[in-house]
């Protein structure tokens, strides 16, 4: 006989879901509203989507955001992987605990502080060595790399401790030099973790408003910055259309990342079983 589900738990679940998703649902519905006034229903239409695709401002902001996100994700993955390797594989070095703590500090640091300190750094550097001349895409990208690499490092480290060192030792034992071991064994096993890290860094960068606002300069507004400034000027229905598109993109991204993570989890269990670390 199936166990009776608690009505209480069920209603809590429904309430929670409603709380999370009704706002987004409203947004999606209103993005198809013909009326120019956001809160008045004027019939079904896709006119805001058309106007969205015609808006040069939005397109250039989107392109800027994507460019930053891709460069950021790539560099953060490279650097984060190196940091993760160091964390997981150097058995002991002076200041190891400090390093571990410091690499994860950006995860808990308020964004305002990260943004402000980076802004100060860029200004000081600009005065001292004349670089960066002006703030824009480069400074935003650098700022994003500094905090996303911490996330990547943590993912890589956990993946590496899951794999254990035995497989690398086995390769060494069979005559592979350390660099070879890295290419043949460590990196292939790390690939799912690196992909997950890349996707995470990519989304973090697309998402970021606070840090980007601090370190960007005139003429280089990322998509979140553009949306924010437009909303401040008054709601226009094309923003609803844009937001709907973003929701769609994020949903797809989350689904892919989730799928990779689940696969990675299974793989890790399998590897751990083989490596005997569990």
């Amino acid at each position: 006989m199936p166990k009776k589900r608690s009505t209480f738990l069920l209603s809590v679940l429904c309430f929670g879901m409603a709380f999370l998703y009704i706002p987004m649902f409203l947004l999606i519905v209103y993005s198809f509203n013909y009326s120019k006034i956001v809160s008045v229903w004027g019939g079904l239409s896709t006119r805001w989507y058309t106007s969205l695709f015609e808006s040069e401002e939005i397109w250039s902001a989107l392109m800027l955001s994507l460019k930053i996100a891709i460069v950021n994700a790539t560099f953060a993955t490279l650097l984060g992987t190196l940091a993760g390797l160091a964390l997981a594989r150097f058995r002991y070095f002076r200041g190891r605990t400090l390093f571990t703590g410091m690499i994860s500090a950006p995860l808990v640091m308020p964004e305002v502080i990260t943004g402000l300190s980076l802004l100060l750094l860029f200004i000081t550097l600009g005065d001292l060595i004349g670089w960066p001349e002006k703030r824009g895409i480069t400074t935003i990208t650098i700022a994003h790399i500094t905090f996303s690499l911490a996330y990547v490092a943590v993912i890589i480290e956990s993946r590496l401790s899951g794999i254990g060192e035995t497989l690398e030792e086995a390769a060494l034992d069979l005559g592979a030099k350390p660099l070879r071991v890295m290419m043949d064994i460590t990196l292939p096993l790390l690939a799912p973790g690196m992909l997950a890290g890349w996707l995470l860094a990519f989304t973090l960068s697309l998402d970021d408003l606070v840090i980007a606002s601090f370190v960007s300069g005139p003429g280089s507004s990322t998509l979140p910055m553009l949306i924010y400034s437009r909303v401040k000027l008054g709601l226009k229905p094309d923003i609803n259309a844009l937001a709907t598109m973003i929701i769609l993109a994020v949903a797809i991204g989350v689904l892919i990342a989730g799928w990779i993570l689940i696969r990675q989890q299974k793989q890790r269990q399998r590897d751990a079983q083989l490596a005997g670390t569990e």
Partner: protein
Amino acid sequence: MPSQERDAFLDRPWKDSTAEPFIRIEGVTKRFGTFTAVEAVSLDIYKGELFSLLGGSGCGKTTLLRMLAGFEEPTAGHIYIDGVDMIDVPAYARPVNMMFQSYALFPHMSVEDNVAYGLKRDGVSKAEISQRVADMLSMVELLELQKRKPHQLSGGQRQRVALARALVKRPKLLLLDEPLAALDKRLREQTQFELMNIQDQLGVTFIVVTHDQEEAMTLSTRIAVMDHGQIIQVGEPSEVYERPQTKDIANFIGTINMFDGEVMSSNDSFLLRCPKISKPLKLPSQAELNIGQQVTLAIRPEKIKMTLEDPHDSLQITLRGEVLEFAYMGNISIYRVKIEGEVVLQITIPNLDRMAERKIEWDDQVFISWHPENSLVLRD
């Protein structure tokens, strides 16, 4: 040396003082911080041996093995393999291969690629690689599974892939870390004999780390018993079993009954006065003893006879006892017998007859006896 004697040494080079050891471990110590994992170990191992390092967990056997493989550097001492000092030779350049306890098969490579990996690193030609991999896989009877990934194999199959991968490079020395620990009992026994056959066929020197004394006894030419980072006895399995040097070794390898007491003399022999037993026990004649010395008399359970009638044999030690419990194991029965002074002895009796007239059972009054030369004198 007469040639006859030489021949006798062929199988047992460790008995020949002129034989050159293949592996020489010289005063090797390994410390991790303040913890000493291996302390001043010296050991000679000869070509073609199947040598076991036996000990409980944390005794340093695995650390010693890892130093031979080159994964750990000794804090002090030297390791020579085939006359070459290994101190500055990195793991990937040593003529040594290892079979890991967990097998450490590369999960993203097929069976075939796993086995071929070491040969590819050595720059062996493609044709030769595929030939040698196929030979090795057919030896371990896995040729038809060569395209599979490790996670598609059973435990026993993985173990054989690991063995093939370690042997395909024809190493001078194969290190095996608990090679049978992950297998079930039936497979373990079968694999034990396979390992011995392979070792015999290829003539590779094997060093096996194990905590399983039975495994060590069956497999090895010689056993080194380790405890707290030190080697406490080295010898052939029968030596270690029949002549353990300390109480710890006697207890660790098999089961043994012990009586503590003081040495006294009577006529031409030494006796042991055991405070719990009224009758002094005769000690074996070879032992070097002094009167008044505190020693332990030890006797293996299978060397004790148990009868319902008094054997009336003056050459044997005979005691009376009562059966507390017994366990029927099929081939043998294990009895626990209480003798005077609340001393409980373990005795194993082979079940020689299927239809014995009178089996010894609970609460039976019995006579137990043994020949003093079958007992041992142990010190702490």
